[in-house]
Each structure stands twice: as C-alpha cells, then as structure tokens.
C-alpha cells in the first residue's frame, strides 16, 4: 500500500501555503501531521495531485491565550498542546480528552488543526470544539474568516473549508469560573477510534453534553439543571434523536445505550467537579 504519485511543496509561511492552494485548487491537499492523510494516501482513499506541507511553518507552531480563548496554530501538534502548561487550567476539557486521542506516538506528529480539518465524526478534538462552542479561523489569499464550530464541521469528513482556504487556527474557549468538565469514551483499544465519545460541561444553571461517534458530526445538547428521572428521560430522548448506526464495532442500539449510561456518568462527574 503506497500512495499514488504526487508533487510535494513545503510551505515556509502561511501566505506561501494559501498561494499554492489558490494555484492548485481541489487538486491540492494540505499536509500537517499526516496522521490521517498519509494513512488515506497509503490506502489510496485520497489521491491529490500535490501536497502542500504546512508542518514546518514556524509562525504556525503557536499556542496562546487571547480574548477568552486558547488559540492553537496550524502546525501545533496534539502532544505540544497536551504538554502546554496552561491547558488544565484554561481548557480542562482538552486536558481530559487529548489522552484518548490516538496514541503517544501519533500525538507526537498529529496536529490539532489537522484533526479538526479531517473532521472524523468520532474524533475528540472536533467534539471538544463543538461542545465548548469554539471557533475555526480559515485563511485564504483573499483574507480570513472565522466560523463557529457548528458552521465549520458540515458532516462526515467534511467541513466548510473552501479549496483555497487553510485552517490557520482553532480557538477553544477558556473555562468560566464555576464550570465543571468531564470526558469519556468507549473504544476497542485505548487510543483507537471511539465507538462513542462524550464530553460534558456543567455550569451553575445548565448541563451540556457533546456526543461523537453517533451522527455524521459531533452533536451538542444543553439542558437546564436536571437530575433523577428527568435526566434519564432527557438522555433517552437525545440518544433516540442521535440515532447512531451499526458497524463492525457496535450496534446503533449499543451506541444509544452508551449515550444514556455514560452520558449520565459524565454529566454527574462534570457537576461534581464544578469550581
């Protein structure tokens, strides 16, 4: 399993990368960490004419906290974000979720923006972006635009990114005082694709649950504070709305049951660690 032939260009700056995209359009694919894309090339699920490598753009290897969000640049790896000293304080949900994301060896190379761009419906980083109401910054030769997480990811492996655009930054909102967070997922082997992944946020007045691995994209629902049977009923309704699907790993029924059971567990955990 080897890729089909393609041209390769290493971009030194974002403007070089977006200029290459403007020139080659849909024939080009951006290569960052390559932890999804090179596997797809090897399996010939992707056959671009040219790869534009953005992984060595020095200006894109950034993590910074500004205007209420942690902004992660296009070349920042998942391991770098996990090791960032401010993460557990600023975006606790990410500190809980990233250890589930692939393995130590793939996080060393896989990027945050690459994972968001790949837009796997069961992936952790898109789920966290959706659950926290984060943003995606897209840049082309003509300028930049910022999309809410829900506008950015449009379906299974698809986003609102236009062929001439690059995802130059992801913005994960910084926690508010009094919020609690929890994350869990079920996978066949730790680090494998999640069968169902769940992210919970509890505030003083609300509960929010994001679910991956059920629909064609991560789906988020928020309720006023509930407990007891009312919470079970709400989760049951959410599970049926998500529907789920059968595949080689689990049935739709099993997936719905995980939303009910693990959903309750993560929401209660998020409530109990509010501070």
């Amino acid at each position, binding site marked *: *399993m080897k890729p089909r032939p393609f041209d390769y260009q*290493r971009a030194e700056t974002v403007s070089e990368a977006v200029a290459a995209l403007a020139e080659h359009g849909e024939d080009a694919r951006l290569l960052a960490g390559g932890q999804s894309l090179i596997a797809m090339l090897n399996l010939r699920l992707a056959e671009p004419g040219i790869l534009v490598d953005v992984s060595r753009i020095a200006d894109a290897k950034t993590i910074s906290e500004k205007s209420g969000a942690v902004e992660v640049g296009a070349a920042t790896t998942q391991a770098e974000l996990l090791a960032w000293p401010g993460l557990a304080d600023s975006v606790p949900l990410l500190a809980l979720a990233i250890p589930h994301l692939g393995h130590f060896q793939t996080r060393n190379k896989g990027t945050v923006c690459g994972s968001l761009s790949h837009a796997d419906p069961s992936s952790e980083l898109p789920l966290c972006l959706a659950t926290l109401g984060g943003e995606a910054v897209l840049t082309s030769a003509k300028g930049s635009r910022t999309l809410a997480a829900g506008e950015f990811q449009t379906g299974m492996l698809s986003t609102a990114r236009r062929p001439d655009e690059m995802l130059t930054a992801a913005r994960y909102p910084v926690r508010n005082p009094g919020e609690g967070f929890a994350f869990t997922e079920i996978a066949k082997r730790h680090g494998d694709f999640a069968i169902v992944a769940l992210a919970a946020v509890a505030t003083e007045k609300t509960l929010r649950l994001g679910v991956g691995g059920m629909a064609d994209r991560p789906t988020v629902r928020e309720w006023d504070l509930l407990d007891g049977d009312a919470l079970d009923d709400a989760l049951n309704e959410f599970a049926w709305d998500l529907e789920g699907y059968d595949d080689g790993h689990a049935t739709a029924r099993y997936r719905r049951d995980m939303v009910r059971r693990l959903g309750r567990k993560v929401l209660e955990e998020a409530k109990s660690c509010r501070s």
Partner: protein
Amino acid sequence: MPKLNRDDRHEITVTVNGRTVTGRAEPRMLLSDFLRQEIGLTGVHVGCEHGVCGACTVRLDGNAVRSCLTLAAQADGRRIDTVEGLADPDGTLNDLQQAFRRHHALQCGYCTTGILMSASDFLERNPRPDEAEVRDMLSGHLCRCTGYAGMVRAILEVAEARAGAPEPA
C-alpha cells in the same frame, strides 16, 4: 522550498543515528521505505502501513513517530534515530535492550524495534512512570506473539535503574 516533482527522485539528507546521510526519494516515498531501501536500516519494520501497528516507529527530532505516516521529503534536514543506534558500536546492547532480553519481552522481534524507540522517547520525558503510564504508551504498538507483560516489567526496571536505588516503600 521549490516544488518537488512527482516523477523525480530528489536528494534527501538526514542525520540518522548521528551520521549525516543522503538518499533519493520521490515525493510519495514513505520515510519507512526510505530508511530501509535507501539508507539500509532494515531495523525499521513495516507492518500495517497505516499507523496502527507501531512496528515502524522511529524518533524524528527526538519524538517517537510512525515512519509509515511520514514522507521521506518531510524528514529532509532533520534528525532520525532508529534501533540501529541504540547499541554501542561494539555491539553491546543498551540497558533497555538488555532488559527486554532479560524479561523475555520479545519472541519474533518484529514489533520490538518500534517499541524500543517509543520507550526510549517515553523514558526521557517520563523517567519514573507507573505501570499504567507504561501500558498507555504501549497501547500504540501491537505485539501478536509475546504479549506485553515482559515489556512492562523491562521498561519499569530500566526506569528504576536509571533513577538510582529504588525509593523506600
């Protein structure tokens, strides 16, 4: 950097195990194939070629990564370490390799080279891991013949030995 044409073999220079070497690669050539075929480092094993099995793991600028999910062109100008660089030039195995042998952490050896490179990076970052952390790191590798118990014991023993005497209970 100028565009590399798909049909040409381009010069790629890397520092492998402390030695600077140059080989040639088409843009589509994977780093795993480049190291084996161009540089002759056949200790880099190729298993699944889509990032799941971990056999091809090498260190790129110190970080354990899948060489099958890296293009040779991406490694140009960078440092790579492979299993061939672990032992002394006279063939004396390093402490980690010796511990693997002592604890029967391998039989066929196919997955071992990648695991040694992961464990090398891991122990530098986390010199005193607990068993759960070692197992978490090993979750990025598949062994189909020996199992992981010996590996876990070997890695924990090396960590302890490198740190000096065991801490009092």
